């Protein structure tokens, strides 16, 4: 079984505070891996380390078995790794259509129409991104990551700010990507409905360490996870 992405001993410190403490993670190709955990557990930090946003983190990142730890984000993108952001990170002055098109150039002129339709951005094509609503910006952020159908997707709370229907649509799209195209997804999300409906495996992060890892059912039943994270709703 090939590992699409693997992190070994990932560590990140801010001053004296350790946000990510020697975390190992390995995701198979075509797997959707949920990453959950309380606020401040280190989920976004983990994505930052994997995607090359964090400067000088500890540990090693392997993409399809190749060490990419020293590569810049753009080099990682060229090798098939893309990410979205928890705090919207788009091109405010460019129109929706234009920024998606530009994004496609980096990956051999990929098609943008599909992404636009899937994420319902067609109607907003000509609007500068700064002027669209928050939820729409979230979808645009996600679309920027999806352009060119990357091999490995690191998504940081993609469903936040979306309506329930949209979240479910999103879940369907991701499942589709994984099933049909073998895209590997690391999904950070607080919307448990989405997580439990599509994830193959779930990693629970707590205080910068991996608390548990397993199938949805296992995680759901884990009393520690319920107490620390899931609460009554699940």
């Amino acid at each position, binding site marked *: 079984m090939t590992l699409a992405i693997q992190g070994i001993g990932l560590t990140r410190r801010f001053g004296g505070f350790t946000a990510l403490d020697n975390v190992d993670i390995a995701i198979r190709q075509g797997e959707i891996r949920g990453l959950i*955990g*309380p*606020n*401040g557990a280190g989920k976004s930090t983990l994505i930052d380390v994997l995607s090359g946003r964090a400067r000088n983190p500890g540990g090693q990142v392997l993409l399809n078995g190749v060490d990419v730890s020293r590569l810049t984000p753009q080099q990682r993108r060229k090798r098939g790794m893309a990410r979205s952001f*928890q705090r919207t990170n788009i091109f405010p002055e460019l129109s929706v259509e234009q920024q998606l098109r530009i994004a496609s150039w980096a990956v051999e002129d990929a098609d943008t129409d599909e992404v636009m339709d899937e994420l319902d951005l067609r109607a907003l094509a000509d609007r500068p991104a700064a002027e669209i609503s928050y939820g729409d910006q979230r979808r645009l952020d996600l679309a920027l990551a999806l352009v060119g159908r990357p091999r490995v997707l690191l998504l940081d709370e993609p469903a936040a*700010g979306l309506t329930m229907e949209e979240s479910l649509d999103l879940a369907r799209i991701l499942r589709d990507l994984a099933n049909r195209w073998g895209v590997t997804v690391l999904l950070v999300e*607080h919307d448990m409905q989405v997580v439990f409906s599509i994830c193959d495996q779930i990693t629970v992060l707590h205080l910068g360490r991996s608390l548990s890892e397993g199938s949805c059912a296992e995680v759901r039943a884990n009393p520690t996870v319920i107490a620390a994270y*899931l609460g009554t709703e699940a």
Partner: protein
Amino acid sequence: MSLLAFHDVHALYGQARILNGVTFEVGAGERVALVGRNGVGKTTVVNTLCGGTRVAQGRIELRGRPTKDLRGYSAAQNGIAIVLQGRGILPNLTVEENLLLGGATARRGPWTLAKIQELFPILSERRSNPGWALSGGQQQMLAIGRALMANPDLLILDEPSEGLAPVIVDDLAALLVQLGTDGMGILLIEQNISLIHRVAERFYVLSKGSVAESGSLHNVSRDELQGHIAI
């Protein structure tokens, strides 16, 4: 007496008309939800209240008084605190300073720095960290805490559950209900059906810049609520 009321409000960003006759009101101790799809204008309602749009027509009342010339500070000075969408944390100020800023109107009430730090212990742990060093969810807690610091009569929350862990959303639901019971008005703008369902008594559905539907949420199931919103 209503704390906040919009009567047939039309509002524009530049040339673009976003609100087309919005009417709603929230009274003391009421827990009201404002819902709708992305881009219908929910946040624009909040912005309008803060003077961020041009009001072409209609009337906005604060505590029953029609208010012309709304400014950023008008709401706060009338006892309305807002949890902004996207959080609006001041990145260079420390966590504690962010909280103190919430108390700028110096209204007295149950919420003090200590109380908030008790509610969200992380805000006490990180009190001298700059705002930008918090995780997304921690920032959301800070935004909620900051709004409470104002001891408002009306609390407006624009998608507060965003980025919060489910346990914390549970706590938030309980908190909002309690606040309402204690007499604070709550205007909750949300996508999280379960949170709306647990908190709100009444709802307004916004569609294409005006209120398409409204009603009580007593004895309405989650699915029915979902149906209302999906207009």
